[in-house]
């Protein structure tokens, strides 16, 4: 026990005296003894065993890392526009950012959820939430591209999202901030009477992964923080932690930390499905956007939705319950058997572990301690399986290794603690550098964890790496957890601020990874399928350039007849059909972005010339030995000049405007019918 208190003392001193961490180096060198370096070493040309997908926090993106090497494989742009490849700037992708607030080009991404079949990762899709403008995005894991974003209406701060059920039936989410529903102009201090929280169920189409807001449950105005769904025997239930059951609206750090216990919501979603079928919902007018990439044209189509279906627990008995959880819980995690639910009370000295069977029994016996807004509160002791006594300070998140052990991060005492789920006994503790938020074990939240590694994602970096000025990369620590004791084997900096991550065996993704897009399947209405079909068309002040790229030239590469004030659409088709031959497109005076076009794909950049002259354009991706030669010129004439549209590649410039115009009209027509 004494050592525990010493640990607390050390942890607290880290937090409160963080400026002076002198002896951390020697601590590390002790841990890094033996073959740690070898364990994380993946030889040149060898592959990692796992993909780890980390959210980007305030970057709004996702990063894919290899484990155990910690090598960054890719940053996948999701909620933030990405001029590097034109995501959000190209005509095809800009609609991905449509919301009921207009175009929102950034967000705060928090929790990664990989699609599951039978409670295991299936490697098909990845879902992630946008916190600020409530949204859920879907990434296709065959292409590592964001293909869908669904806005969630009438919630504020979609932190508690997008937690998946064991057959990817639903993505469950809850509002972090309760707000007036529907929004209205009321004094903030009318919180208790006017503010509500919504828990949202988004269904996932099992074939295509398309998301749809199935229903929302109107809940008391708390802060809904994190959630997990049941698995195995508890499949059909969702568990969501809440804080601020005090229902305060100001100085939350004090006022929302007064009650000894907050409440965890327990939802029977199968029952909710039944009520939906019985029509026990009310409909409400609202506004939210659904943006979906058309698989054939690869153009994002955006649709405003105006109706949502609400279930009210008051009219739907046996659908929602609460259980008390010690003080301001954060994570809420379900073990691989589906029996144990861990409430990580971040301001509590102990952790409560609930038993699903006991919860069911308490519900059956109506062993309730009153109710809140008509929602029964299950008796704490009746639902409790046991308490992990004094495991550390500030428990946040728990994952599992499939061998009966749980691993919890402790923010304040800056450590990961391993404990036995059945006996609640503490087995090991290791410091992290510093103050971990989430942690991830490959498959660690599924029915079949792959308990080989654990990554702790830290919130504080300080002196961990060479300094980079005031702003530092966040730090992750990789532990080998295959033995009795956790062993630190690698430290690596990460991008943005990873909150949650999920890791999956590489062989569930690698065989399905697309090498390039089949150009024969390119149904983009403005595709140019062959160099002989390149052309330039004027339509009023709009000019459409049907351009192709293949090593090592753009066709056409000489274009005349642009005028100041034109709106020029460069529709660039990459004719390559080989792996890893993207072509880029950049033109001087472009105020938006560049393009990266993958083989077989068509992408469109708008350019609005404002100056008279001859402007160069070129390929931005070093594609070949003659990449530097892959360039061209665009001639811009004054407004009102009579220079005709002409184009060509290594020839006398052509001006077959009629043929080009006919082609353009056809493309425009099919683009319109495509919508």
């Amino acid at each position, binding site marked *: 026990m004494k050592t525990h208190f010493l640990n607390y003392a050390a942890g607290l001193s880290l937090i409160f005296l963080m400026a002076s961490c002198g002896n951390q180096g020697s601590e590390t060198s002790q841990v890094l003894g033996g073959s740690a370096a070898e364990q994380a070493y993946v030889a040149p040309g060898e592959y990692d065993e796992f993909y780890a997908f980390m959210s980007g926090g305030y970057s709004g993106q996702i990063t894919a890392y290899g484990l155990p090497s910690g090598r960054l494989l890719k940053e996948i742009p999701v909620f933030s526009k990405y001029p590097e490849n034109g995501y959000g700037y190209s005509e095809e992708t800009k609609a991905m950012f449509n919301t009921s607030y207009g175009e929102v080009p950034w967000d705060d991404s928090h929790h990664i959820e990989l699609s599951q079949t039978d409670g295991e990762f299936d490697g098909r899709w990845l879902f992630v939430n946008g916190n600020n403008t409530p949204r859920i995005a879907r990434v296709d894991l065959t292409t590592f591209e964001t293909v869908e974003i669904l806005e969630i209406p009438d919630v504020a701060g979609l932190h508690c999202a997008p937690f998946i059920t064991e057959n990817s039936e639903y993505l469950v989410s809850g509002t972090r901030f309760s707000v007036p529903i529907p929004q209205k102009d009321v004094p903030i201090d009318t919180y208790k009477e006017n503010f509500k929280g919504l828990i949202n169920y988004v269904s996932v189409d099992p074939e295509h992964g398309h998301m749809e807001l199935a229903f929302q449950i109107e809940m008391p105005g708390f802060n809904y923080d994190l959630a997990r769904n049941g698995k195995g025997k508890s499949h059909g239930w969702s568990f969501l932690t809440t804080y601020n059951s005090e229902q305060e609206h100001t100085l939350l750090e004090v006022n929302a930390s007064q009650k000894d216990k907050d409440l965890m919501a327990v939802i029977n979603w199968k029952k909710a499905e039944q009520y939906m079928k019985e029509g026990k919902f009310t409909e409400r007018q609202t506004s939210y956007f659904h943006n979906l990439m058309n698989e054939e044209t690869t153009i994002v189509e955006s649709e405003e939705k105006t109706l949502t279906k609400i279930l009210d627990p008051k009219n739907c008995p046996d659908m929602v319950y609460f259980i008390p959880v010690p003080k301001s819980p954060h994570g809420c995690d379900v073990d691989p058997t589906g029996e144990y639910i861990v409430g990580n009370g971040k301001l509590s000295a102990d952790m409560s572990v609930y038993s699903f069977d006991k919860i069911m029994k308490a519900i059956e016996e109506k062993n309730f301690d009153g109710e809140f807004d008509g929602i029964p509160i299950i008796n704490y002791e009746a639902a409790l399986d046991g308490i992990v006594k004094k495991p550390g300070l500030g428990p946040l998140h728990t994952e599992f290794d499939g061998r009966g052990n749980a691993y919890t991060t402790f923010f304040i005492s800056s450590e990961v603690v391993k404990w036995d789920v059945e006996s609640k006994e503490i087995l090991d503790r290791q410091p992290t550098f510093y103050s971990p938020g989430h942690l991830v074990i490959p498959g660690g939240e599924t029915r079949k964890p792959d308990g080989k590694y654990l990554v702790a994602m830290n919130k504080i970096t300080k002196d961990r790496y060479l300094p980079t000025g005031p702003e530092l990369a966040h730090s992750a620590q990789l532990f080998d957890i295959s033995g009795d004791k956790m062993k630190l084997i690698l430290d690596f900096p990460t991008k943005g601020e990873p909150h949650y991550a999920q890791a999956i065996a590489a062989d569930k993704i690698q065989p399905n990874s697309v090498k390039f897009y089949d150009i024969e399947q390119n149904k983009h209405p403005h595709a140019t399928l062959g160099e002989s079909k390149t052309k330039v068309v004027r339509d009023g002040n709009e000019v459409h350039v049907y351009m192709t790229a293949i090593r090592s030239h753009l066709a056409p590469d000489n274009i005349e007849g642009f005028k100041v004030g034109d709106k020029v659409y460069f529709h660039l088709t990459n004719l*390559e*059909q*080989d792996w890893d031959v993207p072509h880029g497109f950049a033109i001087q005076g472009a105020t938006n972005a560049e393009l990266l076009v993958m083989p077989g794909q068509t992408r469109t950049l708008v350019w609005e010339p404002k100056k008279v002259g001859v402007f160069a354009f070129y390929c931005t991706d070093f594609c*070949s*030995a*003659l990449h530097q*030669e892959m360039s061209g010129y665009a001639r811009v004439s004054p407004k009102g000049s009579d220079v005709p549209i002409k184009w060509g590649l290594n020839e006398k410039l052509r001006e077959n405007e009629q043929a080009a115009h006919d082609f353009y009209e056809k493309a425009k027509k099919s683009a319109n019918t495509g919508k």
Partner: protein
Amino acid sequence: MLLGVLSLGGVFLFPLWQITLDAAQFPGGLKMHIWVNKISGSEKNIIQNINILNHYIGMQYIEPDSIAELKYFPIVAYAMMGLGLISLVINKAWAYLTWFIIIAILGVLGIYDFYLWLYDYGHNLDPKAPIKVEGMTYMPPLFGEKDLLNFYVTSYPHLGSGFLGLSTLLGFAAFWFKRKS
């Protein structure tokens, strides 16, 4: 003899020749297969990708549609299978010998024709090619291995040629045994 005719059918099931281009940037190499009636590769777009590489040194595009041999060689192969069946009906040593001689001559001619094509691709270069190396020609080996700039080129007969050879031998064997009996 029947076996000879059947194994001649093997030229439709397997490529006659395989040319492999190995370079650091192409893990596994680019494999081009020459068939009696087509040119294909280990991947769907191999011809396009080889053409893209070849254009830097001014080699002509490989366009299977413009190679007349790919159209009439299969007809010749079918004709030889037909002749084989006829010789089977005649069932005389001279018939088998005739068939053997024809197919042997055709085989040699085929290889010579293939050599001419390789010579033409390797030597007949576009004078405006972006990459010109003084004194360098790019003829792949007919049989063997060779360094061509960054590529290590390997060229050997494939299973189809094996069946062609087997067929020729079986034709001769048919003649031999017929004569002995």
